[in-house]
């Protein structure tokens, strides 16, 4: 408690001020947009609806985080309203896109993000209503904002489907995948909340967050090139796609010195973990308060890394080790790195929220036993969805490629995810596993889901070249 209060130097804004500020900002941004729109004459275009959604989600996010900083309860109600408004605008964007493209929005990274952000907002509202977990927006809204911002960087024209994707099974498989992954994400969030309510020590969260961030930067550092460069994929400006040397092999360019930056930040984010270990070994609590300050500095360093990455990778011509001449790159060529950088900052911010506002969070969350049960129920929903997703994928593969199972990395990892959740269910139903161990299991399961979704595409190549 004393550690937390040392960090609480923030002046608590009065209840109404932030709400009024957010409301005015939303109104202002929408007014400007409407003025622009009135000139072009097309109010309900997809871009405008998406912009409106962004504005509302940003408002909701600000209010949720405002709650996080000050603990004022009324913020949550208005945040919910903002989320509702954003969801309506988002639904409009999805419908518009579907109509224009002639197929549900699943065919490109842009469309997947659109669907994902919609699902996130919908799930936030469901969790608030059905499970009475009112603070889940603190986690989901910032992710939604990042999603919409990422969308602005991507090629957004309606892309016709290549032959392999022209099948109803595309819609079935991808819908099931998104629902399954969303349910797994929800179970992860609930398991985290359980651990908070189960009085898991804040420093254990510190260690976990640090390990996660270190992992992200380790993955980022696989792009470290000798002499301090950083490898990114080259971008073909004319065709608006990655540059390929040959089938499936991308051309990489080296951004000089960015590798050193990433290495430096890696050191910065490893510091809290090292300090935590020292605190455990030497049994000295002072190391923990230094560790918490290190987390704060780590966030600033990560923001620096993000800014440098944005500045260097946004445009600019770089040389490549595999081909002669200079090639351009773009942020759209590195969606995973961007997501990883933002994800790391986000996770650390959430840890700070826990550090500074734990008693408030504990007051707003249901009790531990309930959360344990709800986590189990969410996994009971996720598991059949995972099963059906794999089955639909197998059937589709059979129709498109001639075999239902190829031990392709994505397929294999999907099966591993399935096995991990099957293990959870076995341990729970047959061996009565409950409480903390069950929560750890749920967290591990979601880590595997994230690896299947991101890690396989980024780190391991294969047949599954589409997403």
């Amino acid at each position, binding site marked *: 408690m004393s550690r937390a209060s040392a960090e609480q130097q923030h002046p608590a804004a009065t209840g109404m001020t932030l709400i009024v500020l957010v409301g005015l900002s939303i109104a202002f941004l929408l007014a400007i947009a409407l003025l622009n729109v009135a000139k072009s004459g097309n109010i309900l275009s997809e871009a405008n609806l998406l912009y409106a959604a962004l504005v509302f989600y940003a408002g909701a996010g600000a209010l949720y985080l405002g709650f996080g900083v000050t603990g004022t309860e009324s913020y949550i109600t208005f945040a919910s309203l903002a989320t509702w408004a954003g969801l309506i605008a988002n639904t409009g964007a999805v419908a518009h896109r579907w109509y224009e493209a002639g197929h549900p929005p699943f065919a490109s990274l842009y469309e997947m993000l659109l669907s994902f952000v919609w699902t996130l907002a919908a799930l936030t509202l469901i969790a608030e209503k059905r499970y009475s977990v009112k603070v889940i927006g603190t986690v989901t809204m910032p992710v939604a904002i990042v999603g919409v911002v990422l969308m602005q960087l991507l090629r957004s024209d309606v*892309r*016709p489907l*290549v*032959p*392999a994707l*022209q*099948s109803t*099974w595309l819609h079935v498989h991808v819908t099931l995948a998104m629902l399954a992954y969303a349910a797994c994400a929800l179970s992860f969030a609930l398991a985290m909340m359980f651990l908070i309510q189960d009085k898991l020590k804040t420093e254990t969260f510190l260690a976990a967050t640090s390990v996660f961030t270190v992992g992200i930067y380790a993955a980022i550092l696989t792009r470290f090139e000798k002499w301090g460069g950083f490898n990114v994929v080259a971008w073909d400006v004319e065709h608006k796609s990655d540059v390929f040397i040959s089938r499936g092999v991308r051309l990489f360019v080296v951004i000089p010195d960015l590798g050193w930056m990433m290495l430096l930040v890696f050191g910065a984010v490893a510091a809290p973990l090292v300090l935590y270990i020292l605190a455990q070994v030497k049994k000295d609590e002072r190391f923990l308060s230094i560790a918490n300050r290190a987390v704060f500095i780590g966030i600033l360093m990560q923001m620096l890394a993000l800014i440098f990455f944005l500045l260097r990778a946004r445009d600019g011509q770089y040389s490549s080790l595999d081909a002669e001449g200079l090639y351009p790159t773009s942020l759209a060529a590195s969606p995973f790195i961007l997501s990883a950088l933002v994800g790391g900052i986000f996770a650390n911010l959430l840890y700070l929220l826990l550090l500074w506002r734990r008693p408030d969070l504990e007051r707003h969350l249901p009790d531990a036993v309930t959360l344990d*049960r709800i986590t189990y129920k969410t996994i*009971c*929903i996720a*598991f*059949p969805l995972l*099963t*059906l997703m794999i*089955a639909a994928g*197998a*059937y*589709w593969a*059979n*129709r*498109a*490629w*001639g*075999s*239902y*199972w190829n*031990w392709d*990395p994505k397929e*294999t*990892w999907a*099966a*591993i995810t399935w*096995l*991990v959740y*099957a*293990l959870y269910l*076995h*341990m729970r139903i*047959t*061996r009565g596993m409950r409480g903390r161990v069950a929560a750890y299991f749920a967290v591990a399961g979601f880590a595997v889901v994230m690896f299947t979704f991101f890690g*396989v595409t980024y780190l*391991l190549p*294969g047949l599954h070249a589409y997403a």
Partner: protein
Amino acid sequence: MALSLRSLLRKTWLTLSAVKTGVILIILVVIFSAAGTVILQRPMTEPEDMQRAYSPSMLRFLDAVGLTDVFHTRWFVTLLVLVSLCIIAASVERFPNAWRFFSRPYKSPDDGFRRVLPTQAQIPICNEEAGLSAAERAFQRLGMKAERIVRTNSFSLFSERNRISEMAVYIVHASLLLIFLGGIVDALYGWRGFLMLTPGSASNQIEIRNAPGRSLPFSIRCDGAGEETYTDGTPKKYWSKLAVVDNEREIFRKEIVVNDPLVYHGVRFYQSSYGNTGKLEALILNAVPSKGSGPAKEISLGLNQIVPLDADTKVQLSEFIPDYVVEDGKVFTRSNDVENPAVHLIVTSEKTDQAINVWLPEIPGIAENAYAPYVFQPKELRTGVFTGLQVSHEPGQWSVWAGVALMALGLTFVFYVSHKRFWVVPAHNLSGELILWIGGAANRNRDVFEQNFKELVEQIKKELQPETAAAFAPPAAIAGTTIAGR
């Protein structure tokens, strides 16, 4: 000796049927599958890439241990077989009890059972029959059926729902076994290959990767193939018109596209790829005399074909280059795709006995177009195409799909359908008063079940009320008229 063998068998059986064994086996499968995605696997990776990625000694080690083809090594297959055996053993060990429980419902709870059942309630009643009929009405109102069970001197009630739920877990595991069976059958008897056809050709020879080819008892004839692209060049559709010819007879025709294969006698033909063979079929040109006026002649040339232009001159198509590039004064081809086509014509004149090399397009330094007596304008270039078909025979897939369907059913029952039982027994409590004992049990979703149980008890209490109240209070309607006096 015999005794220790029996006890050894027994121990093996117990280990095999334990949940712990299953957990350990699943963890092992996870570890080795993960290894198989991180370590480059031979069937999918070119040998040069393997040698580039690993040092020779590391590669030798990985090959020896089997980590370069994890999913087909014997020990991985054995692991999967062990998992299947474990599932079978665990199910067989537990099934008899579950079946006994399923087939012989416990309808009449005895004293001991009633004492220890966690979910129960007691309601005082005046007489047995009134209590039982109130309970029956309560069940009816809640949409449940109750049957009367005859006991030694009285009746009791028993109501249950979804008894099948007790079998759900066995359905799920049986479905897993079906899927494994399908996989094994396909691994043993299934095969996958490739067939490349050009329009007009037919074949029954299937190429199989890393194995001798296969001959089918029937052949596939290609009557046409093509691709459609979107305006920006991305492929929209690959199609092939195929016909099945069995015993000299054409059985049927089908136009296949990606995602829509042709199936005949269990063999499936999938549209996999399409491309240019890079070979010329015909070149159609206009030949105009370069000096003086003369009619333009349209000629069609095949490779190496000689066509006379007039009494004196002949032209031969000597080379066709689909994707030309000039290097060191020579013309090479970059690929088989018709990107930058070039043709080499040789114009021979009887009179002058000259052979002039005409190139279209006119490649500087190599072409001698200026000396030719004719000027050639290309009109049409027809090149050969091929269609690539993926061919597979998977007899086990029906078992796999059956397993999937069964698993969907089983999972529904496991998670969403719970077996609920209710008993109502007239009995005497410790003080000797007549009470109605109500008990309930469910095999899952116990929190929802507790709600249902409370509802039932409240409903029974409500049904009992008129009985006790009727003795004292007059019917409401009559009370209204007498009191209000209207």
